[in-house]
């Protein structure tokens, strides 16, 4: 998009040529009774210095940004190297618009290809798309894709999948023919083990791992159960750093892996913009949603990148397209790519290890406190549930007053779990801050 300035004279000329006397006449097709006939109620203009001081005053009220925080639950605090922000600010990357013309978009297409390759390597899958809006909409697209592949309608989803993801997927698929069945996790392990809801009408079994409670699911067993009835196993991953330590969902038998890429150097940003991940097996590629970039060679053997398999997409297939997601989170996917390539394989493993070890330390210290226990026995990565002896909201409020954001009260999403809260520990949590949390809780 170019910036095209125009003078008052030019504007008058344009209006004149379309037979209008002023710009407000452009809106005359809007009925008068729905038009706003007054000025917007906003403050008068401020001088630049006044704006800066007003913003600083507002920012200073954001005390949460400076307190040690143990909040996770889908959005994670990770360190992002400075290079990520620096490189994505190159003006060539500012428009992440669909690179339909490969002859002028090789750089953009190359990073998309690299992003797809990295997501394949991490998830253990064969093909990944150029990104989705976020983790929850990626999961909803997985529901739809599983229905297309199996020609079945029933989606069995564990209640240990992020509650907001389940809500989004429900809304997203509301007007389709999906029958969504939610199944409870095991109260002792925190994992899904009861798969009796699976039958020959089931399109997919959907689980998150590590799940909302931080518990690592037994994906291999779940994949076997799903495949026995001819259903697909959809694995949701909200914490991408876990790929650095856990067995990939692909190697456990997952058919579709979806997730959130925020952990790859993307700011928490009050919940967005983030980036959805979507990967599957090559045999399902025609049923996959979203944009795909491929590698190709010209007749002289020169390497090039281009969008491929576009016939699945709505600009060609119209209503028969695999999804209406045509665009993607280009800039955020680029940031995630730069993060992953900066960290490298060893770096990502190191970050994952730090997360696991620090979280294990916190879990062990908290569980040793009087009045606190760990309700679920399954192994965890960087998040775990703590059960206290009184309302979790009160415990967390007391912690907040003592200067620590201790975690998320599960009662927000799960009734009957009033004494439990979710604690997340990442590489950004120092030992001193973990000890501080332990001190505040005791």
């Amino acid at each position, binding site marked *: 998009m170019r910036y095209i300035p125009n003078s008052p004279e030019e504007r008058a000329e344009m209006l004149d040529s379309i037979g209008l006397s002023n710009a407000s006449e452009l809106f005359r097709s809007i009925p008068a009774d729905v038009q706003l006939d007054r000025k917007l109620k906003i403050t008068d203009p401020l001088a630049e210095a006044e704006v800066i001081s007003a913003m600083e005053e507002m920012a200073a009220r954001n005390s949460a940004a400076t307190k040690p925080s143990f909040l996770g639950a889908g959005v994670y605090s990770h360190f992002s190297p400075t290079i990520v922000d620096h490189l994505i600010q190159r003006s060539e990357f500012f428009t992440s618009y669909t690179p339909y013309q490969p002859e002028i978009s090789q750089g953009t297409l190359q990073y998309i290809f690299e992003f797809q390759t990295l997501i394949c390597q991490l998830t253990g899958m064969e093909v990944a798309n150029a990104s989705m809006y976020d983790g929850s909409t990626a999961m909803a697209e997985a529901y739809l894709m599983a229905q297309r592949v199996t*020609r079945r309608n029933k989606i069995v989803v564990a209640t240990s999948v992020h509650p907001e993801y389940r809500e989004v997927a429900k809304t997203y698929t509301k007007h389709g023919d999906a029958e969504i069945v939610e199944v409870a996790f095991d109260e002792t392990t925190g994992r899904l083990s009861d798969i009796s809801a699976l039958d020959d009408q089931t399109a997919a079994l959907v689980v998150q791992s590590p799940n909302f409670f931080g518990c690592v699911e037994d994906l291999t067993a779940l994949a076997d159960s799903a495949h026995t009835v001819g259903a697909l196993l959809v694995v949701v991953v909200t914490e991408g750093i876990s790929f650095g330590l856990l067995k990939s969902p692909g190697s456990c038998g997952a058919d579709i892996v979806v997730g959130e890429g925020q952990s790859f150097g993307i700011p928490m940003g009050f919940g967005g913009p983030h980036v959805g991940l979507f990967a599957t097996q090559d045999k399902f590629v*025609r049923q996959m949603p979203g944009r795909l970039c491929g590698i190709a060679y010209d007749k002289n053997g020169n390497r090039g990148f281009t969008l491929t398999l576009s*016939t699945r997409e709505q600009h*060609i*297939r119209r209503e*028969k397209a695999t999804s209406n997601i045509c665009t993607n989170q280009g800039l955020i996917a680029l940031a995630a790519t730069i993060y992953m390539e900066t960290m490298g394989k060893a770096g990502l493993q190191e970050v994952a290890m730090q997360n696991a070890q620090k979280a294990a330390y916190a879990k062990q210290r908290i569980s040793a406190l009087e009045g606190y226990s760990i309700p679920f026995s399954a192994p965890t990565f960087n998040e775990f549930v703590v059960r206290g002896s009184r309302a979790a909201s009160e415990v967390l409020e007391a912690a907040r007053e003592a200067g620590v954001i201790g975690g998320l009260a599960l009662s927000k999403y799960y009734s009957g779990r009033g004494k439990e809260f979710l604690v997340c520990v990442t590489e950004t949590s120092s030992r001193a801050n973990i000890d501080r949390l332990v001190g505040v809780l005791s």
Partner: protein
Amino acid sequence: MSNIPENLRYSKDHEWVSVDGDLAAIGITDYAQHSLGDVVYIDMPRVGDKFSAHEAFGSVESVKAVSEVFTPIAGEVTEVNDGLNDTPEKVNGDPYGDAWFIKIKMDNPLEADGMLSSAEYEEYLEASA
């Protein structure tokens, strides 16, 4: 000049049908493959799917476009030529022989008699050229 074998029946959507008792093999014509260009993928129905006459049963994707393919006669799919997706170029090589898409058990075998003969199809192509 399109190749239009005399022993087959044709539709105005450029499909051919080869009748054998109450079974009919369905493919696309030489004219269709030529218009599409290099075929890269065929989206097939599954055995047991039922279609009424003139209903789209799948699609054929070429390097240029993706087009729906219609069954000219009503029936139930008994066989799908899945091997074609490993060798989609067969559709361009000889669209009539091994490159059939599906076989259906016709609800009414007489329906095929209502389709175009090779001479009629040739006329139709000339008229629409």
